[in-house]
C-alpha cells in the first residue's frame, strides 16, 4: 500500500519513511488547508464561550479568558425570537417534526420510483433519471 508514494524511490526492503520530503509536503499542505477549513468553526466555538464584555473587545481569534457556558444555555432555552422565548429548542423540535415525514415520504416515493425505473425502461425514462 505505502509503496505508491515511493513510486520514484529505489526498490528494496527499506522500511516506511515517515519524514521524506514528499510526506512533509503532503502533510504540510493538508494541515495548512485544514486551518482554512477549521477557522470559522474555531471562531464560532471560541466566541460562544466568551461573555459579552469579552466579545466587545473585538478579537475573534483570541481564546476565551473566562470560559462560560451560559450563552449556550441561553441560546437553547431562553433566547427570544419574536414573541417566543424558548430559544433554539423550539426550532430544533420543528426541524425534527419536518425531518421525520420528509424522510419517510421521500424514501417511500423514491423507492417505488426506483423500482419502476429499474424494471421498465421507457422512452424518456432518462428524463427522470438523467445518469
Amino acid at each position, binding site marked *: 500500500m505505502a509503496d505508491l508514494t515511493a513510486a520514484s524511490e529505489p526498490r528494496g526492503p527499506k522500511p516506511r519513511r515517515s519524514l521524506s520530503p514528499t510526506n512533509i509536503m503532503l502533510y504540510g499542505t493538508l494541515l495548512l488547508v485544514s486551518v482554512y477549513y477549521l477557522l470559522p468553526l474555531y471562531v464560532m466555538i471560541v466566541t460562544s464561550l466568551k461573555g459579552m464584555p469579552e466579545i466587545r473587545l473585538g478579537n475573534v481569534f483570541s481564546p476565551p479568558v473566562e470560559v462560560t457556558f451560559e450563552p449556550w444555555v441561553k441560546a437553547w432555552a431562553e433566547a427570544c425570537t419574536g414573541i417566543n422565548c424558548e430559544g433554539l429548542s423550539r426550532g430544533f423540535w420543528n426541524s425534527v417534526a419536518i425531518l421525520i415525514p420528509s424522510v419517510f415520504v421521500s424514501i417511500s416515493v423514491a423507492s417505488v420510483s426506483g423500482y419502476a425505473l429499474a424494471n*421498465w425502461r421507457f422512452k424518456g425514462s432518462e428524463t427522470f433519471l438523467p445518469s
Partner: protein
Amino acid sequence: MADTARKPNGLTRNLTAKIASVPMIATALVIFIGCTAWTIYHSFTRSRLLPAPDKWVGLDQYERLWNTRRWLVSIENLAIYGICSLILSLVIGFTLAALLDRKIRGENVFRTIFLYPFALSFIVTGLAWQWILNPDFGIQSVVQGWGWESFAFDPLNNREIAIYGILIAGIWQGSGFVMVLMLAGLRGIDEEIWKAARVDGIPTWKTYIFVIIPMMRPVFVTALVIIASGIIKVYDLVVAQTSGGPGIATEVPAKYVIEKMFQSQNLGQGFAASTMMLLSVLVVLIPWAYLEFGGKRRG
C-alpha cells in the same frame, strides 16, 4: 409518455412497474412542469400579489428587468462568482482528493475536516466568515497586531472585490463535497492502472493529468452539475455576509428574485427574473445533455 405504442405487448407489459411509476411521473408533471409553466405564465403579467392572474403585459417585465441596474450587477456577480467558484472548487476538490488518496495517515480526520462545512447552515457560517473578514476584528486586525501595520485585508467593504470575499466562504463550503466525490472517483480507479503507469515510468503528476482525470470524466460531470446548480441558487451566503452590499455590489439573481417577490411584492417582475435564471440554466444544460446522452443508447 410514449410507452404503449412502442411495446409489442401493449399496456399490460410491466404493469406493476408502470403503476409504480405513476407517483414519480405525476410529481414531475404537476410540480416541476406545472409550477414552471405557472411561473412563466405569470412573468408575462403585471401580477403583484399572490392570488395572481392580472393583466397580460407581454414582455414588459423582461424589458424592465434588463433595464434594471441591480439585475445587471447581479448577473455580472453571478458570472464572476460562478466561474471562479467552478474552477476553484474543481481544482481544490481534486487536489485534496488526490492528496488524501496518497495512502496517508489520518485520512478520516482530514476528510471530516474538509467535509464538515457542507453540513453547516450558511446563515451561521456566513456570519462567522463575516467576522473573520471584518477589518476591525478579523484577520486584518490580527495581522496588524503582529506588527505588520500596513496590512490590509478588507474584502467585504470594498465594492470592487466584495464578491471575492463571498467567494472565499463559498469555496470553503463547497469544495469539501467536491473532494468527496473526487475521492470516490479515485477509489474507483483500478490499482492496475497505477501499476502500469509505474512500470512505464510515468511521473505521478503526469499519471493524474493524462490518465486518471480522463478516466474520471463521469465524476467531473456530476461534480460540475452539482456545483453549477449550487452557484445559480446562491443566496443565503450573500445575505449572511453582506446582504448584497456595499451598495449593490454583491447582489445575486436569486436575491433579486426573492426581494422582488416578497419585499417589493412585485410577483411578475420576480417571476420574470426567475424565468431568466431558468433560461440561462437551460441554455447551458441542453447542449450539454444533448452531447452527453444524445449519442448513446442504454440497455
